[in-house]
Each structure stands twice: as C-alpha cells, then as structure tokens.
C-alpha cells in the first residue's frame, strides 16, 4: 500500500495546518481547529478528490462533536488528526472508520504540540514588556503577532511535512512510544503548574491583603465542589453576592462608627 504524498501536496497541507494552529487568521480559526471539516475540505482540494475527502471527514467529525476547550486547551486537535488521516485514507482507499483509527491518536499528539506552542510563546514573547515600558506600539505589535506566528510556523510546518511525506504509520508508532514517556509528563506538569504564575500576578496587582480570605474561600469552594462540576456562571453569581455583601456591611460599619 502506497501511503505518501508528493512534496508539494505535503507542503500545502502543512502550511494550512500552521495557518489554523497558529490562529493567525483570527478567532474564525475556532471552527477550523475544533472541527476537522475545513481541513478535510482543503486536503480534498489539494489531492483532487473533494468528494471522498468530505465523506471521510464527516465520519471523523462525529467523533469530535461537542468538544469544548475551557481555558483554551482541547483534549485533542481534530484539525491535525484530519490533516494526516484524510490523505492516508484517500491514498490507501480506506474506510471512514479506518481513517478515524488514525485520526484519534494523531489528534492527541496534536494537542501536545498546541500546548508546546503556549510554552514557547511564554518565553519568546518577553520583549513585549520592554516595548510596553517604552510605549513602543510598533514593537508591541511585532512581539504580539509576528513572533508567535513565526514560532507556530517553525513548529508545525516541518513536523506536518515530515509526517505527511513519510507517512502516518510512523506517527501512530511515535505517539504510542512517547505517550507515557518522561518528556510528555514534564510538558504536562509544566503546563499544569504555570497557571499559578498568572494568578499570583493578579493577586499581587489587586494588592489588597485584607481581602485575601475571599481568595481562599473561593479556592476551597472550587476544590470541595469539584465533583459537582458547578458551572462558572454559578460561581460568579456567588462572587458577586459576596462582593455586594462585603460592600454593604462595610458601609454599615462606617455609618455606625460616625
């Protein structure tokens, strides 16, 4: 079974994936990323068989119906899965179900790549602090748009090209090999822990030590009620009520003191 593409076809699909995963086309890349459909269409166009590509992609889409990304990280990247699985299915005349079997592990690996992008951004975007301090708008725009886009393109284009050119079976094998490896464990741990930084920064910026009990209250509420899967809006309503109560009681106290 011949499972490779021409170099041009592989490169075009790799560039498409980089456009989607870098998010450089704006918030409209949301559907492109959450759903494999647009990627399937592009692959069909590049390979000259839109009809079969759409049929295969529709089957992959059913696996990913209802995926949401609270906090920005999806548990899988359907677009990356489709970019590999649809060409392999078309070249190997596989059933849509066979394509799903390839798409799922590849999409899983894709989610690590996407988070690795956040990790690289975290360090590479540092110059923006310097530009902000200099009130340098052009520098800021450069740091916020150009640097992360370059990073994404350097990350996704070579990897996707190699994967497409040398075949998806290599990828499936690679996923199985490193899935439980130390590298992925370290990436997960760093990703899981770094959120603490942003939160500590905001606490410092809000800067009211006497209000810290409300942080601890909310933290232990969310730990204690984790199993109840309480909606963020409900938590927020509690927060607004606490805030109103605090201001009301504070006003009352200052009135009685006068």
């Amino acid at each position, binding site marked *: 079974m011949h499972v490779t593409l021409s170099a041009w076809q592989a490169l075009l699909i790799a560039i498409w994936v980089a456009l989607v995963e870098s998010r450089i086309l704006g918030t409209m890349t949301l559907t492109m990323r959450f759903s494999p459909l647009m990627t399937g269409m592009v692959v069909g166009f590049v390979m000259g068989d839109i009809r079969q590509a759409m049929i295969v992609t529709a089957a992959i889409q059913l696996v990913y119906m209802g995926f949401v990304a609270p906090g920005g990280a999806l548990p899988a990247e359907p677009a990356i899965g489709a970019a590999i699985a649809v060409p392999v299915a078309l070249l190997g005349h596989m059933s849509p179900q066979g394509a799903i079997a390839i798409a799922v592990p590849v999409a899983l690996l894709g989610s690590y790549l996407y988070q690795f992008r956040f990790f690289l951004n975290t360090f590479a975007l540092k110059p923006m602090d310097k530009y902000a301090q200099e009130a340098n708008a052009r520098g800021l725009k450069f740091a916020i748009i150009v640097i992360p886009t370059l990073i994404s393109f350097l990350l996704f284009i070579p990897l996707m090209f190699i994967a497409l050119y040398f075949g998806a079976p290599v990828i499936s094998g690679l996923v199985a090999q490193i899935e439980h490896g130390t590298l992925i464990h370290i990436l997960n741990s760093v990703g899981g822990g770094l959120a*603490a930084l942003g939160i500590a920064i905001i606490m410092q910026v809000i800067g009211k030590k006497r209000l810290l009990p409300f942080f601890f209250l909310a933290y232990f509420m969310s730990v204690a009620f984790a199993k109840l899967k309480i909606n963020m809006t409900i938590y927020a309503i509690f927060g607004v009520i606490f805030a109103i109560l605090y201001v009301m009681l504070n006003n009352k106290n200052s009135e009685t003191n006068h």
Partner: protein
Amino acid sequence: MSATADTDNSELTGTDTSVARIPQPDPITNKDLMKSWFGWWWANEVSHTFDRMLAPAFCFGLIPTLQKLYKDHDELAKAFQRHLLFFNTQATWGGGTLTGITISLEEARAKALANGEEPISEDMINNTKVGLMGPLAGIGDSIDSGTLQYIFIAIFLPFAKQGSFLGALLPFICFAGLTFTYGYYFTKMGYALGRSAAKEIMAGGRMAGIIDGLGVLGLYMMGILAGQYINIKSYLKFSISGKVFDINAILNQILPGLLPLLAVVLLYWYFQKQGLKITRGLIYLTLVLIVLSAFYII
C-alpha cells in the same frame, strides 16, 4: 534577561499619587471601537502564553485606542503595561464586552488626568477586567463554542456526508460571521455601559467602596480559577517493608488541593517580598516544575 522591565513592573502595584496634567485625549468613535474589537478578535489566540494567557491579544486590540487617549508617553506606557497582565476570557461575550468597558474606563481616566481631576485608578480598571472575565467566559464558552458551533455543524453535516464541500464551508462561514458581528455589538454595548457607570462612579464619590467590591470579586474569581486551572499532583510512591505510601493520597487526606495552593502562595509571597518580578517568577517556577516532574515527584 530584563531586570529593568522587572523593576518597572513593580510600579504597577502602586496607586496613583501624583495628579499631573496630560494632553486632552481625542474623542472615541465607533471606528475606534471596531478597530479595537477587530484587533482583539484577530490576535486572540495567536499570542496565547501560559503565564498571561490572552492578555497580549487584549493589549493588542487596545493599542490604537490607547494611543488616541494618552498623548503622554508615561501614561501610555503604563496603560500598555497594565493590559499585558494575566487575562483570560472568551472571544465574543467576554472579549467584546470587556474591550468596550475597558475603553470607556480608560477614556474617563484620560479625560480626568487631562482636566486635573481625580482619575479612575489603575486598580479600578484592573479589578473590573479580572472580576468580569471569568463569568463572561463561562457564558460565552457554553453558548459559542459549546452550542452554536455544533448547531451549525450538525445542520450542514449531511452535505459533508454526501461529499459536498459546502458541509465544511457553510458552518464555518455562518459561525464566524455571526460571532464576529455580535462580538462587535457587545463591544459597543460594553462601551455605552461603561460610560454611564464611569460617570456615576465619578459623581457619587463611591470609588473606594466599588474598588473594594471589585477586589473581592477579583480575588474570589482567582481562587475559583486556581482550583480549576492549576494541575499539580504528586506521583511519588514508595514502599517501606511492604507497605506502599502514595504521597498524593496522603496529601489529599491532609488537605485536598494543597499543592496547587502552595504554588500560588509561594509565588505571591515571592512577589510580596521581591516586587512584581514576573520574568524571574516565570523562570524559577518553570525550572522547579521541570526538575520535580523529571523525577516524577509531581
């Protein structure tokens, strides 16, 4: 790396003490609101980082508007810096509304600074954003990406099953078009809402109470986010004479959620002692996480 940037970041925590006059700001038009909304919408996830999340994109959207408001170099620099701090929300319901509200508050601040009046403080602007970003994201995520997107996909999926490219193109166009349009309306709504609120706040002299209330809401939302986003647990297990000790299980018996809380408290304590040295905090935390996880301690 940038020791100077670190020292200057620490100024953000201070309150406005001097009321120096700055040049009058240009008036804000619908075109400016569209520019800022489009900037946020475009940059949205491009510059996502672990420590600031979507703050760079929020700042990116505000750049042209802040340039019209602050003709003063120092005030413009301070505005850029405050909008680069940790920020995370959903694109349309959260980002649109908060872009509008923030512009109205920044405008009120710029006007007051130009007229030599008591301005809306940086705390007020920061706390408003931090307090509202979580609730609005909760609403937006479930409506936009959780419901609306899949309604469009489900409607047009039969086209894809029959092999038509319309099955891909139509849900994409419908979803992108609709969310971009109402995101802009949220921006305009947020701006109008923020303007009337800002006037009331300035007139009523209730600023201190409102900042406190927003501080409560902000710290509270940080607590919820810390519980949901930070994921640190111990993988350390060892056995002494046949009995297996699972550190994570033991820690959970002592106090559930101890490790994530410890990470936040240690960082907060570090910033309290050393000032807001973001770069160093980032490097130290990353190194500690890498070393601990390489040995499977976490």
